[in-house]
């Protein structure tokens, strides 16, 4: 006579399998689209470029200045820097400052536009310091009707045509 346990074994195996299938289905419902999305899309970045290491003390870098540039914001470190950083980056990235060039009048127009349409407040006596900083350090350069290609910036490479 067989042990009852032996009779139970195939039932238990079936039950276990069922539970596994259920778990898989559940898992797929929960994270399936993410997993699919991961396989579906091209690898978004070269991970070799990212060194796995302990988090660096980003906070210590907040005030770092290199070659006259405030590293964190990219702004030129000079008289008026603090007030410009404090005012401009309250709303938008410092990159919106550093990628632009204008005369004092041009910068003033941008400030007026921001005051009229974007909710910028009255800058009071700070305005003069801000304008002086911007006009001095982010002034337009004469580039003519069309500049040369920036040959210095080109990364030359051998084109593989095989």
């Amino acid at each position: 006579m067989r042990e009852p346990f032996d009779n139970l074994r195939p039932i238990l195996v079936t039950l276990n399998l069922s539970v596994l299938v259920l778990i898989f289905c559940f898992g797929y419902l929960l994270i399936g689209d993410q997993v699919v999305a991961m396989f579906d899309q091209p690898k978004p970045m070269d991970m070799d470029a990212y060194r796995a290491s302990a988090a660096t003390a980003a906070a210590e870098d907040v005030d770092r200045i290199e070659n006259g540039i405030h590293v964190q914001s990219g702004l030129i470190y000079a008289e008026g820097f603090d007030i410009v950083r404090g005012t401009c980056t309250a709303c938008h990235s410092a990159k919106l400052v550093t990628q632009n060039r204008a005369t004092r009048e041009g910068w003033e127009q941008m400030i007026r536009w921001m005051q009229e349409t974007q909710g910028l407040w009255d800058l009071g006596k700070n305005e003069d310091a801000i304008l002086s900083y911007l006009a001095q350090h982010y002034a337009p350069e004469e580039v003519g009707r069309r500049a040369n290609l920036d040959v210095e910036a080109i990364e030359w490479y051998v084109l593989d045509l095989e």
Partner: protein
Amino acid sequence: MHKKDKKGIHELYAEDPLAADKQLWDREPLPNTRRGFLKKGALTAMSLVLGAKMVHAEHFPAGMIPAALAGSDQPFALPGKHPGLIVLNDRPINAETPPELLDDKLTPNDRFFVRNNGIPPENVDLSTWTLTIEGESAAQTKTYTLAELKQKFTPVTLQLTLECGGNGRKEFNPPAKGNQWSTGAVGCAAWTGIRLRDVLEDVGVKSDAVYVGYYGKDTHISGQADKVVISRGVPIDKAMEAESLIAWEMNGKPIPMLNGYPLRLVFGGYPASASGKWLSKIVIRNQVHDGPKMTGQSYRVPCKPVAPGTKVPDEEMCIIEGMPVKSLITFPKTGATLRQRQALPIRGKAWTSTEKITRVDYSIDFGATWQSCTLEPAANRYAWQQFSADIRFPEIGYYEVWARATDANGIAQPMLLPGWNPRGYLNNACHRIAIKVTA
């Protein structure tokens, strides 16, 4: 010239870690635990950047740089975007695609440029997202759920080119304010959705309708909750064109969050700012729409040509109603060196808001002589067209390859910059790449 520096991830986190989390990953600390709460979409985005699924994401403290990215000064990729995109601005997010990443026939979702005026909405719930049509010239006010839009109207897929009105701004002199786009605020994708006109007709358009305006769910960077970020639109005739879409898919996939998920307008041939993202409302107007960035000097050029640097009063500025003929060399990347015995294959894209591009030529002698390229037809109106050629160089030395497209009306791209305008729009000067030929 303006140096384009890429934003390091540390920079963002150092400025305001919680804000950086929210902006980059759509992750917020829970009020009680201060643990980063990852929404499903954000988790996917973060996982994509890390290249692997992040385990125990719920225990990941808000405001901390993922360990795999820590200790790196490398530029980071925007969520769902290719790391090769050049980030011009991180608040609001603006990023352009280098020409060599636009070589695909259709621009992949992760390579499509980003031009955001505000902050994309959080907590997008497809089951509760609605689109409301209203306005003086609407016969009624009507609201549709996403499901209703998909069921009620005939779906359509079209290849449509979107280009920012300010693409090429960087070259204007005197400089114009705003994001200093180089060449990459353009892309062409297969958009799936429904025709805007089908929806407008279902609502009912009064005979006095002149314009259609949009409202989206993005929020203002100043944090003012009720401030409309941008609300532009198109004339009613443009809205009724067969190619004007309300879209929910891009290249067969949901539209990326940064490009307007879950619903947006797509108007090929118009400045891309007319194609509202995170679309929630359309107004049918009996006047030219006057939402933010429709008026003043935004997306307008002088009605009559002006000398460089001229101050132009608002009333003499006219709305841009079509992007000019333009082309881009997408292969090879600038800076290629090759042997003189080798022929150089070039490839590129050409597009226009008019009927079609009829020819593309290239020059290797600074525009003195031009040779024709092979040009493929467009899949549909407002789709970009592919061109190619094989170039032989007469001797060794430094060359520039210039490309010039011409439309069906005989209008071609200028070699120098086109007419200066105060805000730096519509630069369609021919694209140039540098080549060195060696013995």
